[in-house]
């Protein structure tokens, strides 16, 4: 087989997969620009009666856009808290040896193996007990269960890629630890922080079982508002599709920002 032929074969496979990846999304986008009547009455490959009503409905109804705001608050809180606790720990793992370091590292990762469903019950009890039920912070903290281990893992990889000589030179130049850390070290690993933030975002934005369990009214994320609509009078397909499209947009923006580092983030982690 000559290389050109092999290349074409591979590109063909890639194109087929991309079509497969985009078709369901295309279908949702197309439905979001149709009216419910059009969706149910006839089968059209693209919207015939192009309408923005579904989006207008979401942006004017507080129970809809409130869900987006709640989701964004939850994800931001989670990302900030996870990265804040993960950075010092990752630095410790990448720079020092201490008693039990390897065990702690793997134990952190093993938290990722517990099905969220296992925690539904105790989380409900725990957060009721401490009076945090139905708050954004409760969901953000619950999501730290899987975002913290992942952040430590990714940040540790990026930090280990930075030679220790940099630390030493900085001390010789008269920087204190704090000055060195914020002025020199953090800027060096900012792509790592970006990738870690991306993964925090990814797992917190998409998770829904714990989020649904821990919220009822005030802090309900968009994901659980959408399930409620599924069981409401008939199916409001059009609004559901529009809401679905809107939930993908923040993720797409996030990927665009970190696209050069995503692959690197995986490769550098302690695999």
């Amino acid at each position, binding site marked *: 087989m000559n290389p050109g032929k092999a290349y074409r074969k591979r590109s063909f496979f890639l194109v087929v997969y991309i079509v497969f990846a985009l078709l369901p999304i295309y279908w949702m986008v197309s439905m979001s620009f149709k009216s419910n009547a059009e969706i149910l009455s006839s089968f059209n490959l693209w919207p015939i009666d192009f309408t923005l009503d579904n989006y207008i409905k979401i942006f004017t109804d507080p129970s809809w856009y409130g869900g987006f705001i709640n989701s964004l608050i939850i994800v931001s809180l989670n990302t900030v808290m996870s990265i*804040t606790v993960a950075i010092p720990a990752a630095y*410790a793992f990448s720079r020092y040896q201490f008693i039990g370091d390897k065990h*702690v590292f793997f134990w952190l990762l093993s938290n990722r193996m517990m*099905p969220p*469903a296992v925690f539904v019950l*105790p989380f409900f009890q725990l957060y009721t007990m401490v009076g945090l039920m139905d708050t954004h912070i409760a969901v953000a903290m619950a999501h730290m269960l899987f975002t913290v281990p992942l952040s430590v893992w990714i940040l540790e990889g990026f930090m280990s890629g930075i030679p220790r000589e940099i630390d030493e030179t900085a001390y010789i130049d008269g920087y204190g630890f704090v000055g060195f850390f914020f002025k020199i070290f953090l800027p060096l690993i900012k792509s790592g922080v970006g990738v870690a933030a991306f993964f925090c975002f990814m797992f917190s934005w998409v998770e829904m079982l714990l989020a649904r369990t821990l919220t009822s009214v005030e802090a309900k994320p968009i994901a659980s508002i959408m399930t409620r609509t599924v069981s409401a009078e008939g199916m409001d397909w059009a609004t559901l599709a529009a809401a679905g499209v809107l939930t993908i947009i923040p993720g797409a923006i996030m990927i665009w920002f970190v696209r*050069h580092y995503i692959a690197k983030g995986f490769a550098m982690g302690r695999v």
Partner: protein
Amino acid sequence: MNSRSKPVNQKAWLLVLPVMLSVAFTAILPLMTVVNYSVQDILSPERRLFVGADWFAMILRDSELHEALWRQVVFSLSVLLIQIPLGLMLALSMPTEGWRASAVLVVIALSLLVPWNVVGTIWLMFSRTDIGLLGVTLQSLGIDFNFTGDPVDAWITVLLMDTWHWTPLVALLCYAGLRSIPGAYYQAARIDGASKWAVFVYIQLPKLRGVLMIAVLLRLMDSFMIYTEPMVLTGGGPGDSTTFLSQYLVTMAIGQFDLGPAAAFSIIYFLIILLFCFALYNWMQRIGFGNKEVSK
């Protein structure tokens, strides 16, 4: 990562402390609660009876759960057998540089960032036989596709949905692994006149060992915990043909509020996942993927 050259410093524990505290609150405390509940019959907050291993015995004898466990095992195995080779192939065919690489990366990662119940919703809209692109297309091709009525079709749809959702994760991991192989390896292979297949088996696969291990373990864990997507797509039906373990647990814990049995079930569930991961981890270490490189 050469850990031997790192200085020993016990004060580093102070830097790990915030992580430990946060994990203690989100993981250890709840886990203790589960263990606590699993051995008690909670009639009301004031009245609890110690019942020992009764709940465990009850759960282990539950034939409905046995069936769900089988379904779960078959599902997870199918997921691994489809998504790992597919993700690997995808990673091998992804462009390596230029705007194409960025574009493909973004398009491929897209499905990972869709909220899980929206994944279910998308596929519900996509596969409906009256209004969905997939459903209507299959029907018009004369294929009797009906995922709400036919268990086999429901299974295929759930598997297809999961493949759509998670294959990109495998692909991204493998892509990252492939990028970290030094170009010198390929040059050496070219000088030796190695075939594409030989390059794959003797260079790429051994180098991908680490990322493949992570990919397999992540896919195993996550598919074993699957809840939201099939819940939205099929609601566990038709009958209970696509009802997986998590759904029983959630019904027990939240729906019926049977704290004791749900806690016992949680622990057994967790141990099963741990056991599978451990077994697979050991097996993958033993088969070794060709040369045994000393990985960090």
